[in-house]
Each structure stands twice: as structure tokens, then as C-alpha cells.
């Protein structure tokens, strides 16, 4: 009985080792998968929006600016004048 047990253990150990190395050798010699070929991009990227410049923290005027001074002119006979009502 004891011999039988030793024999069984040896057989399991040997078959495990042989199976492991056999599988290694099989995989090592099997054909490698071909690397994927580079494909041209299919997605057309939308153009990035043009971002407005970030206003300075010190710039309180933001979306408007001061115009250079010009001497006021006397209003002529223009009837299309605006100044509030």
C-alpha cells in the first residue's frame, strides 16, 4: 500500500512537471498573432472653438473699453440725434 502511494505521488509530480513544460514549449512555438496595422483615423474632429482671452483680474471693464477722447462738435441741423428722452 505504501509503495502504491509513493508511486501515485511520483506519477502526479512527474506528469505535472511534464505537462507544464510541454505546454510551455507548445505555446512558445505556436504562431504569433500579427500586430494590428495602423488604421487611418475615421473620426473627424470638430474644430476647437476659439476661446476669448482670459480677462485680467484687474480689468474691471471686461467686454468694453474706453475710446480715445475727441473734441465734441456742435450739433448741426441733424434731426437724427440720440441722447435719451
Amino acid at each position, binding site marked *: 500500500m505504501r509503495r502504491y502511494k509513493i508511486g501515485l505521488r511520483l506519477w502526479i509530480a512527474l506528469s505535472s512537471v511534464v505537462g507544464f513544460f510541454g505546454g510551455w514549449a507548445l505555446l512558445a512555438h505556436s504562431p504569433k498573432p500579427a500586430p494590428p496595422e495602423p488604421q487611418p483615423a475615421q473620426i473627424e474632429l470638430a474644430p476647437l472653438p476659439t476661446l476669448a482671452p482670459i480677462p485680467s483680474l484687474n480689468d*474691471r*471693464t*471686461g*467686454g*468694453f*473699453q*474706453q*475710446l*480715445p*477722447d*475727441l*473734441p*465734441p*462738435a*456742435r*450739433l*448741426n441741423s*441733424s*434731426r*437724427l*440725434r*440720440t*441722447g*435719451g*428722452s
Partner: protein
Amino acid sequence: MEYLEFRAMNSDIVLAAEGDPGQISHGYQAARQLIEGCERRFTRFSAESELSLLNRSAGRWFSASAELLELVRLSLAYFHRTGGLFDPSILPDLKRAGYDRSMDELRWRGAGKEIPERRVLNPGFDTIRLDEDAGKIWLPSGMEIDLGGIAKGWIAERAARELGRYAPACAVNAGGDMYLVGAPAGQSGWEVALEDPRQPELALAVLNVGPGAVATSAITKRSWQQGDKRQHHLIDPRRGEPAVTDWLSVTAIAPHAASAEVFAKALLIAGSTGATELLAKNGEITFIAVDRQGKLWSTPDIMEMMNANDGAYQVAI
């Protein structure tokens, strides 16, 4: 160019047109009838006007004309777009500041000397309800609205479009709120003089404006003495009192008169500190402001289109 001048809506009205004199005469008649008819309907100074009837029916549904419905709908849209800086429901505050009669009468007789202390808060203009299918408006109890400025611009545009049926190039100027159709022969636009709010007899700039609308709001024109306070008609809805602003006038240029009128007013109330936020939400606004030192401020799009020319700015839109 032929002109017709008359007084309506407590403003000097100027009609200008170029073309066949006979046709222009018919156009003037039609435009004037339209202006005077609309004034009767939308003035708050007549108890019989449609606007007064609407104000008196607050708390219940009111059957409105298509025109009044459109004006109230526009007002509601601009109330939201300006974050409440344009608010027609400030009428009780306007009356409290002394503007409880027409400007002509106020200038003649003056305001009451006492300033009422209590401010009556209304529930907010955005609480009004519209039933467009039934043509009805519902104002909450106690709310009164004044369509003054937006109605004037809207009327000017309608009158100009009516006049435009008779003359290819025409303009209607209603006390500085104007709508321009076409352009005078040989010119790219209309020359519009921008008054100096400190000295109205002087022009700070001349704008060359294409078809569309121009409107100016100023705190210097409709102003009066109430007790020891100098009051003006531009109420800041946030405070319920005449706006305290570093700008004296704002001129806005837009495709439609209602838009120009509303943003001129909202920008003036916002002043230089609040204008940035308003512009961030409404990037299409084009304006020129005049501050207390007489300096001009404008959106960059105006700058790109301007050339100094004989001491005047030329602006094309």
C-alpha cells in the same frame, strides 16, 4: 430728404424719408396715425388706455390686443435676459420717486415735495401669466406695469416699417429711440449724432448706422426735483429707487428697437461694474456709454468698425 416733426409719447418725433414726395406724404400720414394710435393704447397717463385697463385688472385675466400681448411677451423675455434689470413692474417705485404724471406735466408743475418712505414690494414681474392662445394676460394683485421705453421703441420700429412701404429709405426717431430702414441715396448708412448728456447741444460722436435700431437711455433727460433729492426716471429694480450709476447715458445698437431700448436701459442701470456680467450673458450687444467725465466706452465691435473722421466717429453695423 424730407422731414416731418411733431410731438407724441412725451417726445419729439422726427420722421425722415427719401423718395417720391407724394408717396412720402402718404407714408407720413400712415406712420403718424400708427404712432398716435399706439400712444393712446399704451400710455399709463390715460385712465382709458389699454395699459391702464390691464393694470386695473390685476388679479384676474385680462383680454388683451395682439399688440399688447406681444409687448408684454417681449418684456417678459427681456426681463429674463437682463437678469431683472429691465423690469416693467417698477411702476409703483417710479410713482414713489415722483414720476406720477406725464413728464411734460412734471416739468411744468414739479413733483410732490414729500418722498414716501415705504416701498411696496410686488411679487416679481416673472409671476405674470400669459395665455397666448386665448390672448389673455394675468397680473398678480397689486402689480402695475409701465411699458414706456420698450413700447416707444417698438412703436418707432412699427412706424418706420409702415413708412418703409412708401419710401425705400426712411427713419423714425422717437425722442432718441430710432429705427432706420435702408440708407439715404449714395450713403452706406444714416448719420446719427450722439448727444453729450452733459451738454445736449454738443455731439460727442456721429455714428454711421445701417438699417436697424438705435436707442439711448440717459439719467440726465427725464429728471426732476423731489424735495431735496434730484430724481430721474431709470429705476433700479433691485433697490426700487432711481439708479445710482457711473454712466450718464448708454446708446445701444441692435437689429430691433425693443432690444436696443432694453439693453440701453439695463446697461445704464448696471453701470461699468455690472455691464461685464450683462455682456457675458448677451454677447451680441453693441453699445457706447458716456461717463460722468464725458469719456466714451464701447464694445470692441464698435472699435473695429470705427474711423476717426473730421472729429467724429463713424460706426457701421
